[in-house]
């Protein structure tokens, strides 16, 4: 039997961990087929406009509008992580005397301290993408990154998002150079920064991992913490 032509739905869904996996566009799976068709039509139109006007920004803006739409909660959908209480801590001392910490879900680690997920040394980004379902069930692992680590020694691996930008410049999600420059305005940096792969078991992250992480961060004398979820 001849192989049947893929449907448009199969095509647009294939960007999310399928044959055309592209994590910058996995949001297409969240769009209905009509919406995804509108996305492609608008994208091509804006490329035409960009050619005439020389402003590629309008292409990016179009993608951003559709990404926002694709991740917006659907009307009536049950939301799992909604918190009524909103705790608010104030700085205990002036910012210029405070120690700043960093915790990101970007999946950074130091080159000679690979967390080796599932016991695999040197796992590639492609392998991490292929094993995303395992990551989503696994206990998160916190990588400790001394804040004085040379930026070029930082590595990244994360099966949940397109790491091209952060591979080119860690500061895109792990702004270590920018925090170093902020010393003066802030009193100093924590001796260690932290990162983990945010595509992980969310319940275990909250209930099993976080209490220990909070303790660590408090014990490290961190006065204010910058969080960068990816």
């Amino acid at each position, binding site marked *: 039997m001849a192989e049947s032509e893929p449907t448009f739905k199969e095509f647009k869904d294939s960007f999310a961990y399928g044959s055309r996996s592209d994590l910058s566009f996995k949001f297409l799976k969240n769009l209905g087929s009509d919406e995804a068709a509108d996305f492609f039509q608008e994208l091509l139109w804006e490329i035409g406009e960009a050619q005439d006007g020389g402003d590629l920004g309008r292409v990016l803006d179009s993608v951003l509008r559709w990404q926002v739409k694709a991740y917006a909660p659907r009307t009536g959908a049950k939301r799992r992580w909604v918190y009524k209480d909103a705790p*608010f801590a104030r700085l205990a001392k002036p910012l210029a005397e405070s120690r700043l910490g960093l915790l990101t879900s970007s999946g950074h680690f130091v080159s000679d301290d690979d967390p080796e997920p599932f016991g695999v040394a040197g796992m590639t980004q492609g392998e991490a993408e292929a094993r995303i379902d395992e990551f989503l069930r696994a206990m998160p692992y916190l990588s400790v990154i001394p804040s004085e680590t040379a930026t070029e020694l930082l590595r990244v691996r994360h099966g949940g998002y397109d790491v091209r930008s952060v591979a080119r410049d860690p500061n*895109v999600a792990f702004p270590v150079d*920018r925090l170093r420059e902020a010393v003066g305005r802030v009193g100093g940096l924590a001796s260690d920064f932290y990162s983990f792969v945010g595509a992980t078991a969310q319940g275990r992250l909250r209930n099993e991992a976080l209490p220990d992480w909070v303790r660590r*961060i408090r014990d490290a004398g961190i006065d204010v913490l910058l*969080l960068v*979820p990816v």
Partner: protein
Amino acid sequence: MEHAGIPTLSIYVKAFRHVAEEMGLSRVVVTPYLMGRPLGPPGDVLGQRAIVDTALDLLETADGPRTIVEMPARDGNERPSLHKRGRY
């Protein structure tokens, strides 16, 4: 963290602003970038610095939780879609 007395600052991309709102985070900067690029394009030192500075500003200006600042597009241009489906 805030329960433990540690003030936090968070940097979110626009598509996940609703997540920050649902979680009741205290001080949030929302950036006009795609998922995976919370501080914008690689090598954009000035843009990255502006985002970190805006986050630090919130330590001085935020009076309570759920304080969210949305950064404008880097070049300040608004570019609504020019595509008029079915009318061309």
